[in-house]
């Protein structure tokens, strides 16, 4: 941990630079940097204003409403919240084992969401940086620029995403704010026509996903110096893994590894997550900092998401993605990769895995079944965990005997990665910004590091297209020295943080 960059010794003597996007939906992200006269970096902090109001808001509401209501939390991965809440409510209604039809439809929905989210993140948000360079011409460094120079890449990105959305529509009833998953199961199965419509395209989707992995792999191989070291620091990692240790993004047990890949814990039932994880509060950030209780606040923080998951599992249960995983592991020489840019590679391996899972599921006639719901002995407390596109997502509820929610605690993926993202930003600031005049291109390096984690604040960009942003440079007295703004039409130069 670069602790000395978390808090500067004499902040009053320093200049402050803020990279401050204004977002509306999920949260508000901001990076502040304190510099001295020589532009030496003294303090770097990533602040994300987390939306916690929901936990209060949901109290007093009937439990069966929660899986639908939680989708209002986030415009980007509503399906992940829909499913995590449903899994918690399965426990409440005593449905510890769903019918095969229900379980497989939920998996289908989830892998559809993974596919669409990973495609969106890679093609729309990250490919401009990776294809053109972090400090390339800002007017070109966007999806429009990619579409002009690499039209095939942009087109495939759009179609991959669209396919994922179609899966969501067929399983949840709507592309956004669907209702497909309910406590104890699902409310609809697929019709033959719906299944066949999806089957028609899935082979193409698998092929394009393979190409996407090949593309990131090439980028990585062409510039290993940059890709392996950019913002790199060592960290623990956590995810759920499936029963036999295979990659499973829908259900499993919690597993953690240390920075050398050694198991820290394994096979932990997530109903007891609160024995494993605590959340630290820091005075300068609204977002909490989760850590493993056994290691303490200083040593116990960890990474979640694709980079953690692909390295945490023992194998990937689909053949093409497993080949890619092995190649990735070989590339790393048997030790864990800690480079943030490795997220892109592992994210695309996961996208291929999701495509293959969808293909297998679509060949399973259980998807057409009619046995949709189960119930059992009623419980008063339940935890639901899912591996959302961005990482482990924890939903925890208590429900009273009258069926109303009395307590809700959520730990979202971006919160798990809070410390890790702060570390990444500090490493990049130290390596690239120290002692130099700030330019848009340099500041974009910071964003590239944050964006690799695909934090939920990037969600706002998904929704709005382009995020208005303000960067302020203040002197030691807080006087405004310089100011750059970029409107939502991207007319003025400035920087983005997404």
């Amino acid at each position, binding site marked *: 941990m670069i602790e000395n960059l978390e808090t500067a010794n004499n902040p009053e003597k320093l200049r402050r630079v803020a990279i401050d996007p204004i977002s509306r939906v999920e949260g508000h992200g901001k990076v502040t940097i304190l510099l001295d006269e020589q532009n030496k970096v003294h303090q770097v902090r990533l602040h994300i204003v987390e939306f916690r109001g929901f936990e209060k808001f949901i109290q007093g509401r*009937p439990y069966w409403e929660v899986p639908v209501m939680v989708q209002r939390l986030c415009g980007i991965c509503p399906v992940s919240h829909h499913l995590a809440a449903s899994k918690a409510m399965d426990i409440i209604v005593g449905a510890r084992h769903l019918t095969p039809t229900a379980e497989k439809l939920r998996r289908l929905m989830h892998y559809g969401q993974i596919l669409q989210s990973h495609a969106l993140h890679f093609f729309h948000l990250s490919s401009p940086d990776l294809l053109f360079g972090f400090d390339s011409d800002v007017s070109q460094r966007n999806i429009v620029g990619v579409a002009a120079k690499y039209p095939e890449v942009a087109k495939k990105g759009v179609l991959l995403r669209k396919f994922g959305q179609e899966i969501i529509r067929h399983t949840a009833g709507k592309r956004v704010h669907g209702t497909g998953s309910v406590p104890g199961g699902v409310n609809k199965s697929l019709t033959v026509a719906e299944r066949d419509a999806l089957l028609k395209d899935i082979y193409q989707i698998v092929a394009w996903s393979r190409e996407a992995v090949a593309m990131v792999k090439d980028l990585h191989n062409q510039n290993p110096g940059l890709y392996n070291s950019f913002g790199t620091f060592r960290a623990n990692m956590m995810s759920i893994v499936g029963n036999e240790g295979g990659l499973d993004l829908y259900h499993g047990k919690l597993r953690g590894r240390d920075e050398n890949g050694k198991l820290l814990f394994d096979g932990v039932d997530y109903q007891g997550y609160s024995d494993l994880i605590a959340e630290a509060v820091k005075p300068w950030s609204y977002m909490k900092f989760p850590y493993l209780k056994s290691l303490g606040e200083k040593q116990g923080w960890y990474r979640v998401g694709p980079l953690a998951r692909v390295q945490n599992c023992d194998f990937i249960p689909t053949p093409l993605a497993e080949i890619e995983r092995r190649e990735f592991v070989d590339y790393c020489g048997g030790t864990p990769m800690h480079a943030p840019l490795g997220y892109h590679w592992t994210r695309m391996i996961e996208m291929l895995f999701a495509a293959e899972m969808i293909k297998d599921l679509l060949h399973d006639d259980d998807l057409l079944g009619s046995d949709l719901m189960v119930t059992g002995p009623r419980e008063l407390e339940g935890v639901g965990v899912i591996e959302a596109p961005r990482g482990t997502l924890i939903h925890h509820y208590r429900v009273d005997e009258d069926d109303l929610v009395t307590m809700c605690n959520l730990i979202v993926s971006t919160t798990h990665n809070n410390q890790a993202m702060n570390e990444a930003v500090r490493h990049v600031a130290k390596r690239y910004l120290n002692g130099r005049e700030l330019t848009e291109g340099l500041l974009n390096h910071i964003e590239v590091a944050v964006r690799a984690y695909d934090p939920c604040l990037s969600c706002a960009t998904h929704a709005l297209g382009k995020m208005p942003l303000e960067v302020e440079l203040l002197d030691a007295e807080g006087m405004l020295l310089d100011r750059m703004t970029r409107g939502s039409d991207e007319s003025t130069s400035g920087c983005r943080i997404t």
Partner: protein
Amino acid sequence: MSEGNFTLDGEDIPFQEGQTIMQAAMAAGKYIPHLCYHPEFKPHGSCKLCTVRVNGRATASCTQRAASGAVVESNTHAINDERRALLQMLFVEGNHFCPSCEKSGNCQLQATAYELGMMSPHYDHFFPNRPVDASHPEYLLDFNRCILCSLCIRASRDVDGKNVFALSGRGIKTRLIVNAKSGRLADTNFSEADKAAHVCPVGVILKKRKGFAQPIGGRTFDLNPISATPHPTIKEG
């Protein structure tokens, strides 16, 4: 029984002595937007959504008797503008979050808003604070969505013979209450078999643990607009 005719938006509508304009229009398969009217109960005339112009004068069609030769206007731009404003006021007075409401797709308020092309609530939301009554083991009351149509009151009183529900307060403070000292549904003689359990046009009186069991695409107003199925609850009741 003597009969007659009036015109509704230029079309001849036959009626029988004693029928209201609403009844005659419905019998002829014509839809006049309404919320507090239900064919099985005495009209209440409170929501004013069914307002039409009879020979130029505005009046509630659910309470106004049909008269021979009358010229009735309903589906006009000006009248529908007023109806949209009434709907918008209903939306902002309560807490209606359609995307996460289990009555969505089966709700007459939502369906009427779609029918009349209401695009936004327009007015500022009141965001009233109305706790849910979940005391009854089988039914839940979510007062956030009550539009004070009094259908449950009429059903309980006139059909069930019970008086479980009543309106209390005046003007903007009017609210629905239940007939128990504790104020809780569990302490009334309400039961699932009551007519009152099945008449709410919006999402207030709800069977517990059933929300969202019906998939999107198969709900009443997914299949037909409200102008084609104005009273889906009749089947149920």
